[in-house]
């Protein structure tokens, strides 16, 4: 989803808030919340993808104002309620915060082109050095393809191995295994000609977020990237 959590490249947040001699936790509820969430994840009460998505579904105004582990608490509470593990009456005296609704993937959706299952052997479609383009898609559910790279051209640096696709796993779609690649984008490709020429951003992207860079004959940009930095 194009949510408030997808912060890369945004302006207006001001200087980075730093704290000298920062403790690991700032309050007892923070350490309790950290532990509770870890145990729920360890016990597979919900998946990490579902949990991340629940935090993304916190209304934007609440998300930006909440403390870090407060978001963990709101997300976990919402998921436990949605899954019927706890009831609203179990949380007497606690102010309700509704998450934006999510959806479950139907069996059909799991089989359609958005969540296309790769071959059983999970072959890698790309190899280091390949020129790729991050797909310009705007999924309504969870994704780990941030807006700032969509539609941009990059280069595969290395293959990180095979991991479950978050876009499915966050919505009850199970473990759709795909290769994840470290993809490097030139800073100028992402931010324009004012960015320093040599700088770059590398990001970890699931295979289906990528397509081969199309050959471009008109301006000399071939698939092997000649004419591009």
């Amino acid at each position, binding site marked *: 989803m194009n949510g408030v959590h*997808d*912060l*890369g*490249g*945004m302006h207006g*947040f001001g200087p*980075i*808030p*730093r*704290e000298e001699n*920062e*403790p*690991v936790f700032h*309050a*007892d*509820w923070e350490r*309790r*919340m*950290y*532990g*509770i969430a*870890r*145990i*729920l994840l360890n016990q597979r*009460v919900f998946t990490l993808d579902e949990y*991340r998505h629940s*935090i993304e579904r916190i209304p934007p105004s609440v998300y930006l104002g909440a*403390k*870090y582990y*407060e978001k963990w*608490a709101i997300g*976990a*509470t919402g998921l*436990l309620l949605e899954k019927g*593990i*706890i009831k609203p009456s179990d*949380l007497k*005296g*606690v*102010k309700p915060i509704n998450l934006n609704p999510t959806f479950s993937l139907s069996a059909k959706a799991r089989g359609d082109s958005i969540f296309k299952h790769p071959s059983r052997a999970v072959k890698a479609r790309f190899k280091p050095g390949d020129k790729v383009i991050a797909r310009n898609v705007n999924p309504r559910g969870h994704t*780990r393809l*941030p807006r*700032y790279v969509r539609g941009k051209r990059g280069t595969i640096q290395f293959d*990180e*191995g095979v*991991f479950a696709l978050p876009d499915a796993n966050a919505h009850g779609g199970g473990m759709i295994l795909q290769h*994840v690649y*470290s993809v*490097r984008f030139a800073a100028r490709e*992402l*931010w324009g000609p004012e960015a*320093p020429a*040599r*700088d*770059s*951003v*590398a*990001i*970890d*992207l699931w295979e289906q977020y990528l397509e081969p860079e199309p050959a471009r004959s008109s301006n000399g940009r071939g698939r092997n990237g000649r004419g591009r930095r």
Partner: protein
Amino acid sequence: MAANHQAHEHHRHDEPESDITLRVKALESILVSKGLVDPQALDMLIDTYEHRVGPHIGAKVVARAWSDPAYKRRLLEDGTAAVNELGFPPGPEGINLIVLENTPKVHNVVVCTLCSCYPWGTLGLPPVWYKSPAYRARAVGDPRGVLREFGTELDDDVEIRVWDSSAEVRYLVLPERPPGTERMTEEELAGLVTRDSMIGVAKAKSPKAGARKRPGNGRAEHRV
């Protein structure tokens, strides 16, 4: 230990329990009553991440790499295995660790724009600034401005590589060994390796600043 922290907390904020305190208490009590959370496991987990795991682990790894070229090669080749070799699990649930070497010409810096992915096994839990919207928003688009805020000035001809940690690999920066440290022991070197230098927003401390006082244990290192 937990009771002690609680007392501390109440002492610090002389105010009624906040919404969030009540929310987490309610959550813990219902989950414990349903048998989904074991209070002992909870205390152990908290203790591990509050007191045992932290940047002192990453600092040991870096100091070893500075002192032992063969170890450094192994670390850059396979971060997970090399950290394991020193007796540390690289993170929960077999997470893969990739180590990025800073050089005079290439400076790596790590962020997670979408949430807060961080190498827990070698650095512990992230500081608030790493999780802040400001850092997450700016690190990818304005890394030089971000580094300047941390007092890190890089020449224009140094290449900055930002790593947006968006999947299940975690990144640890191997900072440059500071000049003037040739005679230092591995333990002394570890005292120069800050958390921020292993995220990539700062360089390792210079020996003068670092030698003055070295943290006596991991706990102190958390707070550097």
